[in-house]
C-alpha cells in the first residue's frame, strides 16, 4: 500500500475509471485521425494547418494529449509497481515517466497554439 502515494489519483478505483475514460477518448481520437487521413490522401499544408487551427480540433487534440499522458502514467505505474521491486529504481523510473509526460504536455500545447 506504500506505493499508492505515486498512483495517478491516490485511489485504485479512481485510476481504474480514469484508465477507461481516457481509453475511450484515445479511441475516438484515433478513429477520427485514421478516418481523416484515409479520406484526404492528397492532404496539403493549408488544409492540415486549417484543421489544427480550429478551436474544436485544438480542444480535442489537447484532450487526447492529456488523456494519453494520464493513460500512460496509470499504465506505467501499474507495470513498475508490479515488476520493479527496488524502491530507488522504481522511483527513478516513475520520475522519468513523469518528466516525459510533463514534456509531452508542454510540447503539445506549444505545437497547437504556436501555429
Amino acid at each position: 500500500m506504500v506505493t499508492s502515494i505515486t498512483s495517478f489519483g491516490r485511489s485504485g478505483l479512481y485510476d481504474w475509471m480514469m484508465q477507461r475514460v481516457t481509453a475511450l477518448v484515445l479511441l475516438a481520437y484515433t478513429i477520427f485521425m485514421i478516418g481523416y487521413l484515409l479520406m484526404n490522401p492528397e492532404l496539403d499544408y493549408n488544409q492540415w494547418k486549417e484543421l489544427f487551427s480550429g478551436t474544436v480540433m485544438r480542444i480535442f487534440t489537447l484532450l487526447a494529449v492529456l488523456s494519453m499522458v494520464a493513460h500512460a502514467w496509470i499504465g506505467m505505474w501499474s507495470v513498475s509497481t508490479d515488476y520493479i521491486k527496488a524502491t530507488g529504481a522504481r522511483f527513478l523510473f516513475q520520475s522519468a515517466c513523469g518528466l516525459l509526460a510533463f514534456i509531452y504536455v508542454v510540447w503539445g500545447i506549444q505545437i497547437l497554439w504556436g501555429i
Partner: protein
Amino acid sequence: MLYVLSMSLESQAGFDRAAEMLQESFLAKLIAWGLVSALLYHFFAGIKHLIMDLGHCEELDSGRLAAKVTLVIAGIAILLAGVWIW
C-alpha cells in the same frame, strides 16, 4: 510523432520535409510502422479489455477465443498499415 506533427504544422517547408521524409526514407517508414504496429495492437487489445469490462468473454473458452481474435485482427491491421505506409 510529436516531432513530425510539429514539423508538419510549422510551415509549408516543414510540411514538405515531413511528407518527403515519410515518402522517401526507408528508416522513417520503418519507425512509423513500428510505432503504428505497437499502437494498433494496444488499440485492439484495449477494446477487448473494455468488452471484458462489460462482462463478456470472461470464461476460459470464450476468453481464449477473444484473445486469438484480438491477435488476428491486430495482425491484419498491422499488415494493412504497412501497405498504407509503403
